[in-house]
């Protein structure tokens, strides 16, 4: 069982990202689950989304999760929410920030000693898609860190999932995924 | 209607107006329709009356007011001509008399036991303007 927790703001696309990832993973024959915690949340409110991936049917519906990966797609959430809650020694963090990994860990001591990778998904999204929608670049970074799938295979699948969007937006997303894949450190 | 048991009626608190299929029901006179026992046409309310309307053809101008106003569809009219009163479904409310515009009225209320011939023979004459 692979478990992922997304930290995001409502409207940044964490749910879409989690469902998109689940969709891609499902095509490879694995069982998937993607869900989120909702309140009567307004755009901008901190929220979490989740993925589970397994080889056998996923029967666990508890919301509690001790994640293998934590994705933080908004840079401020590292300071305003506890992104390390319920983690384990092996938990891997991929965090959106303009800082280097060392600078980030120095600014948030809770991350000290943890496996932290950084990538500026916000900047990448702004420069490619034209809006601060950091969900697809985060998945590009995840492909690099997890080595889950070949990036070309992943992009092909994402093209299908984004199928209803205008071609220009799809192309921009592909660029964003590739850049995050290349830039995550 | 007989008080049937739970297993003796169709489901759904649903009632049929007719026995079997009907066609062209709008152009079929009531007396020619095959109403089912569930339809109120098959139930008489004649015994509810204390007074009954008597129709006097001589003064009727076929204005159809009584036909329109009758709450029980008990005025029989054919080709826009007043024929009479359906005494099975008339409850004797007197609305037809109230709305009748002729002078003297073409419909008047009499006690249930009044003989119709006698009532017609003694029909009031035209009222003058004096009150």
């Amino acid at each position, binding site marked *: 069982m692979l478990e992922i927790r997304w930290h995001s703001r409502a409207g940044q696309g964490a*749910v879409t990202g*989690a*469902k998109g990832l*689940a*969709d891609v993973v*499902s*095509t490879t024959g694995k*069982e*998937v*689950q*993607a*869900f*989120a915690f*909702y*309140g*009567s949340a307004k755009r901008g409110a901190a929220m979490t989304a989740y993925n589970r991936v397994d080889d056998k049917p*996923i*029967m*666990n*519906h*508890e*919301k*509690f999760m001790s994640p293998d990966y934590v994705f933080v797609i908004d840079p401020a959430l590292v300071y305003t929410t506890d992104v390390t809650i319920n983690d384990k020694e092996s938990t891997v963090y991929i965090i959106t920030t303009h800082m280097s990994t060392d600078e980030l860990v120095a600014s948030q001591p809770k991350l000290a000693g943890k496996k932290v990778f950084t990538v500026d998904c916000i900047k990448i999204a702004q420069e490619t898609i034209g809006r601060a929608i950091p969900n697809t670049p985060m998945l590009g970074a995840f492909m690099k860190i997890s080595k889950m799938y070949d990036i070309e295979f992943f992009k092909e699948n994402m093209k299908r999932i984004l199928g209803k969007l205008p071609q220009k937006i799809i192309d921009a997303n592909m660029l964003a995924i590739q850049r995050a894949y290349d830039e995550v450190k | 209607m007989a*008080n*049937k*048991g*739970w*297993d003796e*009626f*169709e*489901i*759904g*608190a*649903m*009632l*049929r*107006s*007719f026995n079997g*299929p*009907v*066609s062209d*029901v709008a152009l079929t006179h009531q007396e020619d329709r095959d109403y089912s026992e*569930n339809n109120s046409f098959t139930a008489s309310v004649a015994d509810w009356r204390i007074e009954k309307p008597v129709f006097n053809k001589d003064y009727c101008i076929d204005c159809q007011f009584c036909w329109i106003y009758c709450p029980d569809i008990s005025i029989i009219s054919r080709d826009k001509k007043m024929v009479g009163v359906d005494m099975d479904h008339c409850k004797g409310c007197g609305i037809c008399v109230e709305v009748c515009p002729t002078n003297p009225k073409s419909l008047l209320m009499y006690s249930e036991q009044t003989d119709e011939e006698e009532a017609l023979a003694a029909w009031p004459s035209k009222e003058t303007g004096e009150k």
Partner: protein
Amino acid sequence: MAFDKMELRDIEVWDGNFAAAQALRQCQIDVVAAYPITPSTPIVEGYAKFLADGYVEGEFVMVESEHAAMSGCIGAAAAGGRVATATSSQGLALMSETLYQASGMRLPIVLNLVNRALAAPLNVNGDHSDMYMVRDSGWIQFDAYNPQEAYDLNFIAFKVAEDHDVRLPAIVNQDGFMTSHTAQGVKTLTDDAAYNFVGEFKPMNDMLDLDHPVTHGVQTEEDWHFEHKARQHRDLMVTVMPKIQAAFDEFEKLSGRKYNIVEEYDMDDADVAVVCMGTSVETAREVATEMRAQGIKAGVVGIRVLRPFPFMEIAEALKDVKAIAALDRSSPNGAAGMLFNEIAGALFNTDTKALLSGYVYGLGGRDLTKAHLRDLYKELQANADAGKVTTQLQQFIGVRGPKLAFL
């Protein structure tokens, strides 16, 4: 059929809402009258989009309240169409009067009920308060534990509800958010296979049959009302279960997916059993397997059909168990809990020596964790070992503050 078909992949990643919306499309619903409410909104939204995009031939009726939504469904069903809608929580509460009209008029409407807590305090998350509220409304009630089942049970619901020997409306329950907004793999049916399973809608006493005029919604007083209600109850008690079983069997032939009126998991030799509904059934199954590895013979009984209540089937499933936990995801507000009462009633006149304890959990979407369930199974094992219920009969799981237990 004058509409486009949709090519689906064998496995689509859908949440429960979208799975239900797809099922409504594949059933080719004639009329959806709806007043959307969280978390059920995407179901009717989905139908409306399929309609606008030319994938369904039907009618979406926008109304001013849930009361009007169900009223519109009743009118459309009495007129002679295949009708569905969706709601949750307060929406269902406002619909409740018309639910009784629908069942009493024997109209085979399918309602997707995405289970959500009832205010106050206001809460959009999943619990079974709404499901429990209308359990005596004369509707058949199915319960889905995941998106796949929310999809499948819609087809089964139409098949059963529209059967001329049944003619009763049916609710398909799914857990708000935990199913409705959780995307999982859903094995799909092709449009043709799905539609052929449900079949062409066969009207009965429809108002648009102008050659056979009928009066719907009649008044009956003391002289007739009881006979109508007795007939409806009798049909639920006698006719419906075999029809559900037949639909389950036929669906298994079509899809390979097997549904049971009572879903037993590892119950053959179970000493301790948890009885519950919704997503909790699956989480409990996972924990039961863990407990077996620790030497506790744990099983799970899931309620698949809440109405008609599987009285005999429940007694049969639980007869050899030593300790049972009945899990109610709804505040009984001054009683022992619906499942506790129903199970107690089912077992009372049998030879069972099973110990029964009740638990209230998960209100307003509060998480039921695997840790909770591990503790619960251990408590049941302690009861079984002691030969008596070692706790009070009703306990609360997962609520903050001093421990709450009653009876």
